[in-house]
């Protein structure tokens, strides 16, 4: 059965300055289907979504919706045409209620003489939430009082509501990694809803890094690489490996994690944690980190692993337990205390906690260790620049030079700058908190070999991997956490990685 064409693009492209991020994209979306969009970070899929949703203007090409030329000047405009997008980053207003967020910008429907009838709005919100099975969310509850997953659901509700209102089941809904912070149950509800939307004749576009989800949910998959559309497959013909191949152009295996260079940890303990606890997050956590070792910390979101890292990096305060560095007990009030004791982290949230956007690359590298380029307390700008140039070369950071603003770099290159910063700090213990999150696969490989390089030099790494695969691949040992407690510890020698299923059993 040939489905009715809902939306198509003709040779869409996008250029930022001299940088072409998207080129010659021709995609078609039909009514009643779910289309997956996959590709590495920076492959261009997010840019395409933004163009369709009216957030960005295309540099070239045209689009058609319902057979008519389509051009959205703003997101609101796109909404009116029946296109709605759920963003990766949270875009809710935290001090407004769920109902107010869902109908933000559309209060007119509930107002008489400009005054909004909140009861009416809450009732409408109730209805929309119920439709998605979100009976546990109260429309009058403030967003700031909700857990993250709940917020995400409100966001999805908001978009679905906007679009279904105007599009009469001819809507195009874009979901940009909606599942990152959802629990399994929530995910199931979401998937059900997405399928329901599809049944009604809408089209849903689904972006996710979790290939299994894509395979579960979609009918058809577009694959992007380096700003080009490189493939299109029917989901029923695809499997995870095939998709990997299409995205990356190579298979994932031990090679990928440079396992042959995995170090065998020495006996020297650099960091020791005894009965560490943070009230309401984890307790009784004990482990030892050896010199030259990569110690993986794994668990689901909310298992407490994030807070273990936060406490060790000085970002959060522990409520109990002991941290010892090189056998000496230490107390951290802030990350700067931790740094002074030789511990520094690569934060997970790169944009918020990693890069210092207004400053150039060289300053971003030196910020953790100004003293390195200083004589008698005075910093030499020249030495700082030379230092930055050295790192740019060593880590292969693609940039115009050390004076370029870091905010103009791509995710992978910005992350490499952050790596340059922690390495430049000469701290022997590094906490890598999702070091490859939002980094394209090429840069990922670079980061993996970099981790091998530094452990060979005697640095010790506490790693929180983005995926279990990554965590297992990189670590010499892995600690699994569940509900705030350590549930298992596995040795992961290069030639004998533990079975993934075994690990997963311990964390769920």
């Amino acid at each position: 059965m040939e489905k009715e064409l809902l939306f198509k693009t003709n040779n869409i492209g996008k250029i930022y300055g001299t940088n072409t991020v998207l080129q010659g994209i021709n995609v078609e979306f039909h009514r009643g289907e779910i289309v997956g969009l996959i590709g590495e970070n920076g492959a261009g899929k997010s840019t395409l979504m933004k163009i369709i949703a009216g957030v960005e203007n295309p540099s070239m090409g045209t689009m058609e919706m319902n057979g008519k030329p389509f051009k959205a000047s703003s997101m609101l405009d796109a909404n009116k045409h029946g296109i709605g997008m759920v963003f990766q980053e949270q875009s809710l207003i935290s001090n407004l209620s769920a109902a107010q967020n869902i109908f933000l910008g559309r209060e007119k429907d509930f107002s008489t003489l400009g005054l909004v009838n909140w009861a009416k709005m809450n009732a409408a919100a109730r209805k929309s939430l119920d439709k998605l099975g979100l009976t546990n969310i109260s429309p009058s509850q403030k967003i700031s009082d909700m857990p993250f997953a709940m917020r995400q659901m409100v966001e999805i509700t908001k978009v679905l509501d906007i679009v279904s209102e105007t599009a009469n089941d001819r809507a195009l809904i874009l979901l940009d990694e909606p599942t990152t912070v959802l629990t399994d149950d929530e995910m199931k509800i979401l998937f059900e809803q997405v399928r329901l939307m599809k049944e009604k004749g809408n089209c849903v576009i689904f972006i996710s890094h979790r290939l299994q989800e894509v395979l579960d949910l979609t009918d058809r998959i577009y694959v992007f690489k380096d700003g080009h559309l490189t493939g299109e497959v029917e989901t029923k013909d695809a499997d995870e490996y095939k998709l990997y191949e299409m995205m990356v152009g190579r298979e994932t295996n031990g090679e990928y994690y440079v396992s042959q260079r995995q170090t065998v940890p020495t006996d020297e303990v650099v960091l020791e944690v005894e009965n560490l606890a943070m009230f309401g997050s984890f307790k009784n956590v004990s482990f030892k980190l050896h010199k030259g070792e990569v110690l993986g910390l794994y668990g689901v979101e909310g298992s407490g692993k994030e807070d273990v890292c936060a406490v060790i990096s000085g970002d959060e305060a522990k409520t109990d337990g002991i941290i010892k560095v090189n056998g000496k007990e230490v107390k951290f009030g802030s990350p700067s205390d931790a740094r002074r004791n030789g511990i520094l982290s690569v934060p997970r949230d790169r944009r918020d906690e990693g890069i210092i956007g207004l400053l150039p690359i060289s300053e971003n590298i030196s910020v953790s260790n100004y003293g390195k380029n200083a004589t008698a307390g005075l910093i030499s700008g020249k030495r700082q620049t030379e230092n930055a140039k050295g790192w740019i070369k060593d880590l292969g950071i693609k940039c115009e030079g050390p004076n370029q603003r870091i905010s103009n770099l791509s995710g992978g290159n910005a992350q490499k700058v952050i790596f340059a910063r922690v390495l430049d700090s000469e701290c022997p213990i590094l906490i890598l908190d999702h070091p490859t999150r939002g980094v394209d696969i090429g840069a990922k490989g670079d980061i993996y070999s970099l981790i091998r390089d530094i452990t060979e030099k005697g640095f010790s790494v506490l790693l929180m991997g983005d995926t279990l695969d990554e965590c297992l691949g990189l670590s010499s040992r892995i600690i699994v956490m569940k509900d705030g407690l350590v549930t298992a510890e596995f040795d992961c020698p290069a030639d004998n990685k533990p079975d993934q299923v075994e690990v997963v059993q311990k964390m769920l």
Partner: protein
Amino acid sequence: MNLFSKKDAKSMTVAEQFVSKVEQEALSNKIRVYAPMILLVFMTIVFSIYDSHFFSLKNLVNVLGQMAVPLILATGLTFVLLLGRIDLSVEGVMGLVGSAISLLVLNSRNANDWGIWGVILPLLLGTLCGFITGFLHVKLKIASFIITYAISTIVSGVAVLLYNSRPATVKAQWIIDASQTYFLKIPLITWIAIIFYLICAVILNYTAFGRAVYAIGDNEAAAAASGINVQKVVIEVFVLSGFAASLAGLVALIRLKLGQVSLGENQMFPCITALVVGGTSLNGGKGGMLQTMVGILIYMELLNFLTIIGVSADYKNAIQGVIIIIAVALTITRGRKVIAK
């Protein structure tokens, strides 16, 4: 922090700990929200005990009368602060509008007698000033602190030019009558302020515009993504603040009859202080009309009390400063990682 014994905390599972932590946070948030109100009640009780004059009907009516100008200004500024911006131009606009009205109604300087238009046109002029401020702020992308300061210097300069150094005294009988009109023992100007306050409370809480103000103050990018025309709302807020300043100018003129720039002097910083004491955040997004009222009441009571007990004028400002730092420290909401700018 957990007030129960440590042993208890240790024996709980992490999940239980989490629940109790969330509960505690919710509780402390609630306390924070109500802290200004608790402070207000506490102050009222302590002051009344300390000096019997304080809680006398006469004095309360007094405080209400003096509240008119600060309340109007603070109402307008609430919107500006909710956006995370600041408006230093209100003093200048007050002076300009007051001076302009005094020159257009029956007065001691010239032969003008424009009647009600003599009030309406200056109010529009002040509102226009607000528009210009907002427009320049949005279009030239100049920090609100600086643009509003510049506008303030300009409009107060214009005001002095208008009356050419010799301020006019209002002679229009209806304005003089207005200053001596009372309902329920409360002066008319205070009623004007209260009505304006209530209208603004409705605007803030029951209109799309009000929601948009919160949205922009909390997360400008997200608000824009939700289809809110950020620039338009920002300009509108400055227009509203300009109107509030104009109305405050009118009220101050009704109170004092002499139309000069100094009508607006030393009004703005106290108002902003009062707003912050009431619980409005200077970073935007947090606060509301209730907080504004509480803040203004706290501030007015403090001032009134210090006058009543006759604190030496030399020390009064210093004492006031110390008390306000303490009050803000007690009432302000801060997370552990919240940045104080």
